């Protein structure tokens, strides 16, 4: 066996040394290259897995948000329609009230104006009547003053008769 090894050119010592060298190299490589590389790969795999899970979760959440958004939009649409409808009704009612109030006001203003015009007319008529009365009165006084004796005596004699009747 040793001859065969010798014939094959194998040197036990050299082989042992090489084996030791190989073992040392293997140990060094395992410790400093293989294990960190393995750890790095494991970490990367975990990160990718986590990323994929996150993406799935994000997608699920996005879907949920989309659904919620659709629901909310539908509710908001319904509410908006209701509000607009209510506002239209209220505006219509308000408009009718304003128109009615304006009509009443216009009627009152017209009545007041008519009353004012009538009052003014009456005032002018009264004024005219007063002036006419004054003119007639003055004319009568002037006429009496031309010959007051007869009227004076008649009025005095009538007063005398009245006193006579009272004392009788």
């Amino acid at each position, binding site marked *: 066996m040793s001859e065969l090894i010798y014939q094959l050119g194998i040197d036990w010592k050299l082989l042992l040394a090489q084996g030791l060298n190989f073992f040392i190299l293997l140990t060094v490589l395992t410790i400093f290259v293989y294990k960190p590389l393995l750890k790095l790969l494991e970490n990367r795999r975990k990160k990718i897995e986590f990323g994929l899970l996150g993406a799935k979760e994000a997608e699920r959440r996005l879907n949920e948000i989309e659904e919620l958004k659709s629901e909310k939009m539908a509710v908001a649409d319904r509410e908006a329609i209701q509000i607009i409808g209510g506002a239209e009704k209220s505006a219509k009612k308000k408009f009718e009230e304003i128109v009615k109030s304006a009509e009443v006001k216009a009627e009152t203003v017209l009545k007041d104006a008519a009353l004012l015009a009538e009052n003014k007319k009456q005032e002018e008529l009264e004024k005219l009547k007063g002036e006419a*009365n004054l003119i007639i009165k003055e004319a009568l*006084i002037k006429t009496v*003053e031309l010959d*007051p004796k007869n009227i*004076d005596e008649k009025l*005095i*004699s009538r*007063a*005398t008769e009245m006193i006579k009747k009272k004392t009788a």
Partner: protein
Amino acid sequence: MKYQPEVYAQVLIEGLKSKNNSEENSFIKKFANSIKKNGDLPKIKKIIEAIERRIVKKDGGRVIEIEFARTVSETALAKLTGQFTKKDIIKTKINEQLVAGVRITIDGEQELDNSLQKKLAKIFK
């Protein structure tokens, strides 16, 4: 006016009742002074009228005030004044505002207005 003319008249007449002839003058002086002191001198005419009314009333007469628009004939005046008694005091006055006719006031309370002014006022009221 601190006191009404009627109050002054009453005071004077009631005061004079208890006074003899010698005291009358000093009482009247005091009375006049009190009118002055009360600041009622501007109303002396009304006070005198009130006194006059009281005196006439006491004797059973009245104060007759007759206003004419202008001077009237003696006949008309006599006819009118003849309606009152001798106890009455008759005062005549010219008031051109009456235009024509007569206004008679008895004791400052009763009034008989038969003037043209009144008639015109009644027509044109």
